[in-house]
């Protein structure tokens, strides 16, 4: 991307190695829960299905709202008609589950056999009368969490572009709002509206658990900023309105495609801020949004200081220690920046994909944080080679390695503390309030191993393998 916007002093490398991360179709695991009226159909092979079932372990629980369209030999060799086959499956889904939207998740296989999902969807959509959103969450182009990016980018094009004209429709859209206000005086509602400062509509994008959505919405409300909607919303039928010139801001670092789609296709203005992860990031995120709307943020100093004071018991466990990110879920830069602020050092940040433009503000904050904390800048390694990384880990002996699941147990067996990176994908880590949860995760291996340290159980493999 545009190289000139990146800070010159951070050291970027692209190892283009053999690395392990989860397949981007894993986004089904959290998106089906988030979008309650959805049905996800992953169009792929047994390999895809077995991944979701055995490595992610979601299949059994997701059953009512998630399925595989398993491609068989006839599909691959084009003996069967894709349209007829997909229609058969989608009609069955409509009959059995009647979702508000069917999300087709394209995979590597649909890419390779060049199945024209985008071409088939509109035709089938009008034939069966259920919206079909197509996302190409394939491992040829994307890594792990970027699956969410492909789905949200596709959904961004489905957001209504105008406040519905017909009054009745508007009523319906606000039905839930109305229920919430039920029994309250009209003046009260008006008064509530007046708590906000007048500003252009702001839509936030990124899938977060509902409590975190409420939490971040409230943080902005404290500054008088009203969040008009979230992409995704809890229900597909409640997607936010996006008009030309509206402001959008991301909450997750892996949503660069969604950001681009919102800017190019929906003509929205992107607020490029660091991500609201850790009290430092959350503060910077709020400040940036405030600055765009010309609002003087109130009380953020105290708020941040108060959070830091509240987590001091955890921070003192990691201060001065080092953490190595092998790279997995693209949250690495934000987490590293927060942990450096906590007093840790970070020799290396592996990351599957680095969009220096979308992550620009976060990278700048990382650099600033390193300078302020007086620690060396980390080396950022895009598409790392896991084998080489493990050699570097042996050399550096970091106090903690944040890694994908495949390497955690073998590293632990060699006396190296690890934390699974996927836990940060599923845990609630955004906002001021959840800083404690990040630290709870980060310090757990250290706390656990402190309680075991006198037992002498550090190396649990006999001789160092050739690795």
């Amino acid at each position: 991307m545009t190289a000139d916007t990146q800070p010159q002093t951070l050291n970027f490398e692209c190892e283009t190695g053999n690395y392990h991360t989860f397949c981007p179709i894993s986004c089904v695991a959290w998106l089906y829960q988030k979008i309650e009226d959805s049905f996800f159909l992953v169009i792929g092979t047994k390999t895809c299905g077995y991944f979701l079932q055995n490595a992610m372990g979601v299949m059994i629980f997701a059953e009512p709202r998630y399925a595989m369209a398993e491609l068989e030999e006839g599909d691959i060799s084009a003996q069967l008609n894709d349209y007829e086959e997909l229609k058969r499956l989608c009609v069955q889904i409509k009959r059995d589950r009647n979702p508000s939207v069917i999300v087709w998740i394209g995979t590597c296989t649909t890419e390779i056999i060049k199945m024209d999902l985008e071409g088939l969807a509109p035709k089938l959509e009008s034939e069966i009368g259920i919206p079909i959103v197509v996302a190409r969450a394939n491992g040829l182009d994307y890594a792990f969490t970027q699956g969410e990016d492909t789905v949200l980018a596709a959904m961004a094009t489905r957001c209504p572009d105008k406040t519905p004209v017909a009054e009745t429709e508007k009523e319906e859209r606000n039905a839930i709002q109305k229920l919430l206000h039920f029994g309250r005086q009209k003046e009260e509602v008006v008064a509530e509206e007046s708590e906000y400062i007048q500003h252009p509509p702001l839509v936030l994008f990124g899938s977060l658990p509902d409590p975190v959505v409420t939490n971040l919405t409230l943080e902005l409300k404290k500054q008088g900023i009203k969040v008009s909607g979230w992409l995704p919303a809890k229900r597909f039928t409640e997607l936010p309105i996006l008009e030309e010139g509206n402001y959008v801001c991301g909450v997750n670092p892996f949503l660069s495609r969604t950001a681009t789609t919102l800017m190019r296709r929906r003509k929205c203005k992107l607020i490029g801020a660091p991500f609201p992860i850790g009290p430092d990031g959350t503060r910077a995120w709020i400040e940036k949004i405030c600055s765009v709307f010309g609002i003087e943020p109130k009380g953020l100093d105290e708020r941040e200081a108060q959070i830091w004071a509240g987590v001091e018991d955890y921070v003192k466990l990691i201060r001065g220690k080092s953490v190595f990110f092998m790279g997995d879920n693209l949250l690495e830069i934000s987490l590293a920046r927060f942990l450096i602020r906590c007093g840790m050092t970070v020799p290396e940040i592996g990351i599957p994909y680095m969009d220096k433009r979308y992550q620009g503000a976060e990278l700048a904050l990382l650099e600033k944080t390193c300078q302020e904390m007086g620690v060396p800048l980390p080396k950022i390694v895009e598409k790392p080679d896991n084998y080489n990384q493990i050699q570097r880990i042996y050399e550096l002996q970091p106090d903690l390695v944040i890694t994908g699941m495949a390497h955690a147990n073998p590293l632990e067996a060699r006396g190296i503390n690890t934390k699974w990176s996927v836990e940060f994908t599923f845990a609630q880590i955004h906002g001021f309030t959840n800083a404690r949860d990040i630290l709870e995760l980060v310090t757990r291996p250290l706390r656990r191993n402190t309680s075991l340290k006198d037992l002498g159980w550090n190396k649990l493999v006999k001789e160092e393998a050739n690795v």
Partner: protein
Amino acid sequence: MKLAYWMYAGPAHIGTLRVASSFKNVHAIMHAPLGDDYFNVMRSMLERERDFTPVTASIVDRNVLARGSQEKVVDNITRKDKEEHPDLIVLTPTCTSSILQEDLQNFVERAQLEAKGDVMLADVNHYRVNELQAADRTLHQIVQYYIEKARKKGELPHGKTEKPSVNIIGISTLGFHNQHDCTELKRLMTDLGIELNAVIPEGASVHELKNLPRAWFNLVPYRELGLMTAHYLKEEFGVPCVEITPMGVVETARCLRSIQKVLNEQGATVDYEKYIEEQTLYVSQAAWFSRSIDCQNLTGKKAVVFGDNTHAAAMTKVLAREMGIHVVWAGTYCKYDADWFREQVSEYCDEVIISDDNGAIGDAIARVEPSAIFGTQMERHVGKRLNIPCGVIAAPIHIQNFPIGYKPFMGYEGTNQIADLVYNSFTLGMEDHLLEIFGGHDTKEVITKGISADSDLNWNKEAQTELNKVPGFVRGKVKRNTEKFARERGLTEITLEVMYAAKEAVGA
């Protein structure tokens, strides 16, 4: 296209990788897109493996797709050869990359020119076979490769071992209770005075494979993995094969008698009858359990059985023959080997079901309402929904199938484990009577410990809604801590803000 919610057997490459990574010092290279190498996660997490899984993905991305992957795959093979000096590198595609129709055999040949170790392409059709068939095929391929290599070099050993000896074929990583079964089988062979010529593939070196023909017989405990290899060794070298699964008291005895027969045919004079009798009547507790008063209460209870061929067939026989339980239907997902299953279980159950459709199996369970299910993790899940207990007896594997304690399914200790599993799966004897007399466990409405019982604080609607979103198992704690926080500050109403503040302050 098939609408699938669940798979009983994995894709082909998983089978190939299970075999390759079971061997000592063998590395597998996957030709696959990012994320297809989740085998490493399964092995590391499910099996709690301490060593790095010897599988590397040579990643197929958009660039590779455009240019072809030739150099990349060859480079990755030769690189691994230099880094870790494996005896053998097995190259495998996945369902996805196999349709690229690249000439992988050619890559292997090119890499072989440079590599010190051996290089091989796993010969498997990824759309026609599943995990189990692919594992069987890959093991056969590797064994054949090393036997032919030795033959060419004139290094094939002649004759049999001096004393009766066995190859145990089919123990592999990520197999259902394989490690414990293996220990039990080794113990059994030692008891019988049979030497272990080899155990493959788990823990074996490919260099030992040329010695396989020296064994007096092959023992294939699992029908799904090893039969192809055993049949190959029989055809080539006339090594007899015992393929009776030693699971349950009766089948274990049958297996031992079969071993006795093949040994005596080769000139040994062994008699295992006394050993069988001693184990059956006095050492194993399973026969005694069958005769005990406890098991009487299981008579005529209805059960269904579902799993892979090996475990479903063996379990059906144990339930019907050894415990007097009425097996309403028995099923397998090994459709490719259905005839064998039918022949094995037909006389022990009312109906045989051959299907890999979990929905149909769930319906079949609901239809007959058994007192217990013996199935896979999927049937356990169905059982939970229908409130029917389920004992898990077969793969697909789950972390629960790698217990830390010793839990074999085979041999005489296996019979004990199975008896426990069966007994614990049914409502127990006396309990059964009491339930009938008193009409259920809970005769009163449960008086819940109301978390809001004496709360002097008022939760507003938003906060209450938020509290309800907190997972049940921690909700009480969150509520208590929030209220404590509010009381300390003299607040009477709990709003969202108070909740968050409490969380920040005390981690509520």
